[in-house]
């Protein structure tokens, strides 16, 4: 069954295509925006800007450390750099540079990590960013955004560009169904979107796991379990208000992310919940493992990142309430 079908969602575009369009749009709106590429513009879709604004596009080549610091230098010139590459290459090759030149310096640079998670599929684990959110989480000044459909990608790119300070935005390769109406995603950094009301359990998700959660909620509804779904598009700053309300009003939480469980979204949600309103929780994500080269949908199945997995976790956590 197609992702989002059970929830009645219409098919959407690949997230990277949405990013390319959104990036071009902010370049059109704001002459200060410049784009830096680590020779993957055709994959990240940053190349849209190369064609439209060649003087504001720099391919720095396969040299992520240099890429990040040149971007930081441009930010110091009152420009707004979007530093783009695969999230795995940026985070793992240039973490030190992101830490010093961007995060400690607290500069106005934007980092696009594409091909986050495992759904890039057949290129395999060397290319996958399954630890990117944890690594970015280790940088205190970094705002972290994970949009979940085309409309939220457009809104996130615009919000990141307007936001003064370092922002990481995660993109991915596969097409995701449309959750928000075209061009109309409410998107305030640090404010989670409640995309489905519910009182029995709250599913907190980001990225591809938002439509998964909505599919799961549709299945749970047939069983008489009324699941709330939160699109936690901002991982930092985290929306404590929405999380505490979810815990208090539903009494059970499932988190779902296309990332290692260690240090990702769920563990940070758990900290907020544990401090403010402890309730039973379950966590969907990658257990301590690297995955493999395969079709994305086969891997989501094998590594337990499907709507059915969320359904099972929700049943389990609802039972634990009693």
């Amino acid at each position: 069954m197609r992702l989002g079908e059970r929830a009645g969602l219409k098919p959407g575009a690949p997230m990277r295509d949405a990013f390319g369009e959104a990036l071009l749009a902010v370049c059109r709106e704001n002459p200060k925006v410049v784009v830096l590429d680590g020779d993957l513009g055709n994959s990240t879709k940053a190349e849209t800007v190369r064609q439209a604004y060649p003087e504001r596009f720099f391919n720095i080549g396969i040299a992520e450390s240099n890429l990040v610091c040149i971007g930081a230098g441009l930010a110091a010139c009152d420009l707004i750099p979007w530093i783009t590459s695969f999230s795995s290459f940026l985070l793992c090759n240039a973490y030190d540079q992101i830490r010093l030149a961007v995060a400690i310096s607290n500069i106005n640079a934007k980092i696009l990590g594409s091909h986050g998670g495992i759904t890039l599929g057949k290129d395999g684990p060397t290319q996958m960013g399954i630890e990117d959110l944890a690594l970015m989480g280790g940088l205190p000044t970094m705002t972290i955004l994970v949009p979940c459909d085309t409309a939220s990608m457009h809104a996130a790119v615009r919000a990141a560009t307007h936001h003064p300070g370092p922002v990481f935005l995660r993109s991915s390769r596969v097409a995701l169904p449309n959750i928000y109406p075209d061009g109309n995603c409410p998107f305030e950094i640090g404010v989670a979107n409640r995309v489905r009301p519910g009182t029995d359990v709250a599913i907190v998700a980001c990225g591809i796991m938002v439509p998964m959660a909505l599919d799961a909620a549709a299945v749970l509804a047939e069983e008489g379990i009324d699941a709330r779904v939160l699109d936690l598009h901002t991982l930092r700053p985290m929306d404590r208000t929405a999380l505490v309300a979810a815990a208090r009003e539903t009494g059970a939480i499932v988190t779902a992310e296309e990332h290692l469980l260690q240090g990702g979204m769920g563990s940070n949600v758990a900290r907020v919940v544990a401090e403010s309103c402890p309730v039973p929780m379950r966590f969907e994500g990658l257990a301590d493992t690297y995955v493999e080269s395969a079709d994305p949908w086969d891997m989501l199945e094998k590594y337990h990142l499907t709507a059915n997995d969320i359904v099972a976790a929700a049943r389990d956590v609802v039972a634990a309430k009693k």
Partner: protein
Amino acid sequence: MSDTVSYDLTTLKDIARSLRLDILDTTTRAGSGHPSSSFSSVEIVTAVYFGGILRYRPQDPWWPERDRFIMSKGHAAPLLYPALARAGYFPRDEIWRLRQINSPVQGHPIQGLMPGVEATTGSLGQGLSLGIGHVLGGRLNRLNYRVYVLLGDGECEAGQVWEAAMAAAHFKADTLTAILDYNKYQETGPISREMGLEPLAEKWRGFGWSVSEVDGHDISALIQALQAAQGIAGQPSIIIAHTVKGKGVSFVEADFTFHGRALTPEQAVRAREEILCG
């Protein structure tokens, strides 16, 4: 209004001497720091800030058209702060807060905390790339300024330096001048023993740079080389400044282990005498 500061040679030598004393006094007071690596760069920084090279306005520190000076060898921060104070960016008293709690005068430079500090450095290898960003930003903003980056020699073991070297030539960054403080020592020993860099000038030439070599303690020669670099078109330039680690204090020059530690108050008394006589 002139945006450079240009003193005669006698005054420049006085400034260099006072910067050395400041490095000595602030690191001794802090009880830590990198005095010997700061000593070796003193004449370079003196030439850049006070020899009529760098265009800057201390009262308007982020003047968009200012020339940039990026201290890529961030451990020479004890030299940068007194130089910036001398240039007029902040009151001289600030330098005594080096490495103290609640102070913006950090052990390694942090961008945004002190006027005149252009970049966060201290993990070596990043400054040249930052400099390229400033060059490209200047082009986009249609501002005419030059960018100077002070590199350490051990720093040139970092791959990112050569990523930047390649990119600067690719972008024909002729407003970029690197100055390499070639004091021949890294933290744990002589460069030639630990991780040799030679043939260093050939490496930079091979990467497409215009290369000159000078005595890095000869202020006149440094100014001449910096002026010559301003006339080079179509490629970035580097001045390899041959220096002495710990320059100015004989027992520091003779002992590379002073790299990452301050002098004791007793050693500082002897060092002060030598610097004043030097």
